[in-house]
């Protein structure tokens, strides 16, 4: 692409969400985020990568205006998001309808007596008329292929069905930005595939997607930009998935991959490993005679685990 075209594309960019030097602590003691700055442009697919407890979920809660930074500033659609600004009914309604959040725990998100009422909850609270809400609910039920579940109670649903209902309850509000917290966690492979396809489809429809995950295998479908968090709750990398996943030292440092050792006959060897998949195995890199006390070697190779596993 020419530099002119690049420039034109950049000029078209619109920053939807912007965090400036945001820090957050639980109970004023336990740090969850430390001086995080980040912008999300319209139409982007951003993956927040990091090990458990690095602050991804907290960041999503801040982006959704559910908790507020102790220091720093958060702007959405050019307006500061604070407890005070969300008390403004007009701003609150506009913000809530434009940013949707799919929680990791679907049980927390599916709280109404029936699926139909659950999906209608958002539109009705946004002030939509009952008739229009009913039409939207029917459309979303059809879109996500859950018409059969409409009158069911949440406790009668499987994990995958609850996830679909949770997504439907957010999609029905037609948000510009969709926040997903560990969307593929605890789902069977078929439902995971369905969800990844849905994210691709929503992105094609112009939605901005922000996903907190440590599922490196799903990155291709989920993101065209990765923001990596270290275990001390700071942003340590921000770039396209290819570049981030090729940086094995970075992934090892933030605990997204680990050294894996296994046996080939009488030999043991080790290489970086992520999510149950072997990387490009370079047995020559580090081989150890069988009989060593620990089966897990400590040496590392430079092969990339995730890229080669797909």
């Amino acid at each position, binding site marked *: 692409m020419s530099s002119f075209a690049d420039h034109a594309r950049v000029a078209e960019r619109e920053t939807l969400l912007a965090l400036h030097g945001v820090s957050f602590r639980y109970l004023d003691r336990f740090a969850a985020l430390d001086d995080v700055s980040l912008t999300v442009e319209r139409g982007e697919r951003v993956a927040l990568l990091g090990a458990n407890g690095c602050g991804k979920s907290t960041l999503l809660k801040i982006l959704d205006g*559910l908790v507020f930074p102790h220091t720093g500033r958060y702007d959405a659609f050019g307006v500061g998001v604070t407890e005070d600004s969300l008390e403004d009914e007009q701003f609150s309604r506009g913000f809530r309808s434009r940013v949707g959040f799919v929680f990791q725990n679907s049980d927390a998100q599916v*709280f109404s*007596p029936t699926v139909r009422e659950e999906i209608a909850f958002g539109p009705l609270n946004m002030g939509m008329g009952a008739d229009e*809400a009913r039409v939207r609910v029917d459309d979303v039920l059809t879109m996500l292929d859950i018409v059969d579940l409409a009158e069911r*109670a949440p406790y009668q649903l499987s994990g995958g069905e609850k996830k679909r209902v949770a997504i439907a309850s957010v999609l029905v509000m037609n948000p510009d930005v969709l926040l997903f917290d560990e969307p593929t966690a605890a789902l069977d492979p078929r439902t995971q595939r369905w969800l990844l396809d849905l994210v691709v489809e929503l992105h094609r429809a112009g939605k901005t997607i922000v996903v907190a995950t440590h599922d490196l295998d799903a990155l291709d479908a989920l993101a065209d930009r990765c923001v990596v968090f270290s275990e001390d709750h700071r942003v340590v990398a921000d770039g396209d998935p290819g570049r981030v996943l090729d940086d094995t030292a970075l992934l090892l440092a933030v605990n997204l991959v680990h050294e894996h050792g296994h046996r080939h006959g009488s030999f043991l060897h080790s290489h970086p490993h992520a999510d149950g998949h072997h990387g490009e195995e370079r047995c020559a890199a580090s081989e150890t005679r069988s009989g060593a006390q620990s089966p897990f070697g400590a040496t590392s190779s430079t092969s990339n685990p995730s890229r080669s596993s797909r």
Partner: protein
Amino acid sequence: MTATATPDWLTRPELGLCPCGCIGRRRKGSFVEKTMTGAAGVLRAAMLSDDTATGPGLLQRVDARVKVLALLASLVTAGLVHHVAVLAAMYVVTLALAVASRLSLSFFVKRVWLFVPIFTGVVVLPATLNLVTPGHVVVPLGTWFGQPVGVTAQGLTSAGLIVTRVATSISLVVLVTLTTSWSRLLAALRALFVPRVFVAVLGMSYRYLFHLLDAVTDMYTARKARTVTRDRDVASSRRYVAASAGALFGKAQALSEEVHFAMLARGYTGDARTISNTRLRVRDMVFALAVLAALIVTIGGDRVLVR
């Protein structure tokens, strides 16, 4: 990441069955186990109730609002009736409605009569004695401080009236709950001007009751899976129950915070809004009129019999 050394004991098999093939002593379940079984039973009963509520019977086809109003009117009528025969007739009608709604008659009868003797029988039993209700003694029981003690005809009539009234009232309530799904029952309450926040809290409490019952069952199953010897110490069971209750309280609090976030995220500002109900159909009107007529006849018949 640091290397992990496998301890020697992890590579050795543990002693399993006794090598001599003897069989150990059997043990009965503790009170904790019985409570857990009861919790699982509650879940199953609720599932069954939802199944019957969507069945093809008579009352399942009637609008929930009409059923709730008919229930209230019937309960008031049962409270106003003074004659055992009239109450018995009402009870027979509830049985007929249960059959018409394709409910298992034995299940329906058991569900009602399991509680009546416990909660009502114990209360009314003393009222049958001449010490409480003076009258003609039909069953002499002996003497107390020189006075003859026995069951009186008047006492039996009063007890019969109360027991029949309670049985009929419980039958009516069970009939409606077994033929109406929980969600429709809540929608009916909203339509009948019960405060929306109250109905919303009721609905969410019921929904998360299942979730927390699941959590309790999981905790107990995890403990049971690691319990290999008989727990003779009741105190340790009590400690386990207390610890579980504490853990459950923590879980419930975390869950409630998440649910609140999920509600806020979708624009909740304190006013619970729901999709409005469907319109009443002709058959609902016919049912309502039939119930009204039956109740008028019941009260009229009772007045005639009392005279």
